[in-house]
Structures are given as C-alpha cells and as structure tokens.
C-alpha cells in the first residue's frame, strides 16, 4: 500500500501520509479504492492543493489548453511523419513524388503547427514582446504554412519557424530544462536538414534527428497542458523621466 502513497507529491506526503496510512490500515482498500487513490495522486500532482504549500497554481486558460493541445498533436504528428519517412524515404530528388498520404500528414502537421504557433506567439506577444509577438506569429505561421508544399525546403521553413518561436518564448521565464530541450531539439532538426542537403537527399540517418524535435513538441504540449504557459517576464519599469513626459497630441 505504501507504494500507492508514494505516488503522491512529497509536499502532500509530508502533510497527510501518516493519517492516510492509518486510514488505509483501518479500512483496507478495495480495487476501486486503489483506482481512487491513483486518481487522487494524479490530482495532487496536477493541482497541488495542499494546505500550507506555495500559492495555488493559476487556472489554465482555455487558450493555453488549446496551445498545449495543438503542440502535443504537432509533436505526435511530426514523430509519426518522421517514422513514415524513415520507412519510405527514397530521397527528395529520387524522382518519386511523396505519396498522397504523406502529403496529407504534412498538411495536417502544418495546420496544427499554425494553430500552435499562433496561440503560443499570440500569448507571448502579450508580455514584453508585445510589439514582436504579432510579427513573429505571422512569420511562424507563414513558415508552417509553406511546409505544406513539402520538398527539401520544408525543413528550412520549420527551422525558421522554430527559431522565431524560441525568440518569442524568450519573453517568458521558461524553465531551464525546457529551454535546453527546445534548443537541443532545434539543433537536432537543423542537423537533419544539413544532413539531407549535404547528401543530396539520400542521407536517411540524419532524418532520425527529427525525432527529438517531434518529442520536444510533445514535451512542450504536455507541460503547457498541465502547468499552463510559463509566467511572463515582467515588463521593464518605465524610467521616471519618461513616465512623466507629456503624451504627444
């Protein structure tokens, strides 16, 4: 039974473990109770409703859920697409056009990427990157849209979109591990792009570098769904002398 209790976060266990174990000893849990405990542990991890712990996590806005969901689906789709390419890839210039199925998947990825980029950048643009947000969103959306045409240029557009996304996200206080995962994945994707072009589109091995990129999207999607977008970096304070300047008519 202690194994089930260990699923709860440490802060919860510090507060409730002793009495909870006592309860389970007094009333041995049924199979249904065990499921209920699993659900309770998941809830405690997701919502952190523990008396005396730090501030309650903010509610995740619907737009953040949409962004996270889109990022997750993009990640899953990209990973699936990469797997299919690795299976069927003949080289971009091998004279064999991509199958309709692959084009369809690529189109779906592009549309979802568009939604994710728009939502993420639109939100990022609300912080100190207010002026940059809409521009970055437009660039990223255009790049993701262009990927629908396929071909070797697909990865160029994807790299540009990734860099723009990364710059826009820099306006937020992203956890270090997430930033490292994101940068690592983007480097991997750039490596895949370089590998393909340096081998005239015949290097299958470098395509594997796309996998971490897809996984990074999945990771970002899950994090945004569970925790919402990272807190915005506070805007720089306006210097006193500028703050008191009269507004231009």
């Amino acid at each position: 039974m202690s194994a089930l209790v260990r699923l709860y976060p440490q802060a919860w266990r510090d507060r409730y473990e002793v009495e909870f174990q006592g309860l389970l000893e007094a009333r041995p849990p049924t199979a249904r109770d065990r499921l209920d405990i699993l659900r309770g542990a998941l809830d405690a991890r997701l919502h952190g409703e523990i008396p005396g712990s730090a501030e309650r996590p903010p509610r995740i806005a619907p737009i953040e859920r949409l962004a996270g969901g889109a990022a997750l689906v993009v990640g899953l789709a990209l990973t699936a697409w990469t797997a299919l390419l690795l299976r069927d890839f003949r080289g971009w210039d091998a004279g064999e056009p991509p199958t309709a199925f692959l084009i369809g998947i690529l189109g779906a990825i592009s549309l979802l990427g568009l939604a994710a980029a728009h939502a993420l950048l639109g939100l990022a643009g609300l912080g100190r990157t207010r002026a940059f947000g809409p521009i970055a969103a437009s660039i990223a959306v255009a790049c993701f849209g262009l990927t629908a045409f396929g071909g070797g240029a697909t990865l160029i557009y994807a790299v540009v979109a990734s860099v723009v996304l990364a710059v826009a996200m820099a306006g937020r206080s992203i956890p270090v591990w997430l930033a490292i995962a994101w940068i690592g994945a983007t480097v991997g994707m750039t490596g895949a792009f370089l590998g393909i072009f340096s081998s005239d589109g015949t290097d299958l091995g470098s395509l594997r570098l796309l996998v971490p990129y897809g996984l990074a999207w999945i990771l970002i999607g899950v994090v945004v769904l569970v925790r919402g977008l990272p807190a915005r970096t506070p805007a720089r304070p306006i210097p006193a002398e500028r703050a008191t300047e009269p507004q231009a008519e």
Partner: protein
Amino acid sequence: MPDEGFDLGRFAEPSLYILVSLSDGPKHGYAIMTDVEEITGTPMGPGTLYGALARLERRGLIEALEPVERRRPYRLTGLGEAMVRAQLERLSGFARTGMERLGETS
C-alpha cells in the same frame, strides 16, 4: 452541485458530504468516510476524501486539529458552517419545489 465560488471542481459534491459530516462535531478521516457512506449510501474513496479535505482546508472551510496517535480530526470553521448552511438551504428549496411540482402532476 454549486460550490459558492470556492472553485472545488469535481470535489464539490464530496466536499459538501464532508462538511455535512463535520456539522455535528470534529471527525478524523476514517470516521468521515464511514459517516458519509451511512448518510449517502455510497462509499467515498480515500483519494477523493483527501483530495476534498485538502481543498476544504486550503480554503479555510475546515481546520485540522492536533492528531491523536495517527488520526487527525478535522472540524468546521465559521466560514465552512456558513457555506454548508447556505448550500443545504438552497438544496432544500430545490427539493421542495421539485416535490411540489410532482404533487401537481400526480
């Protein structure tokens, strides 16, 4: 089940059961579970019980007392008592209206 703006989510209904259970005095977790089962006829799982207890305590609707051995009793706060009273009055009005309407049609 309305939760009076306390944002209890899926724990709103179990929370009301717990508040009702504590209405006649402090109880520890096991006593609350058995009492709720007796009142409602439906068992409450341990995960649900402690998910609701944590929320209620965090919102100041109940408070934890000093533990006795491994059992920690909980009791209603003034805010918790006001909330459960308001909810029960609303439910009572709802039930009365429903019964009246049933009486009209039978």
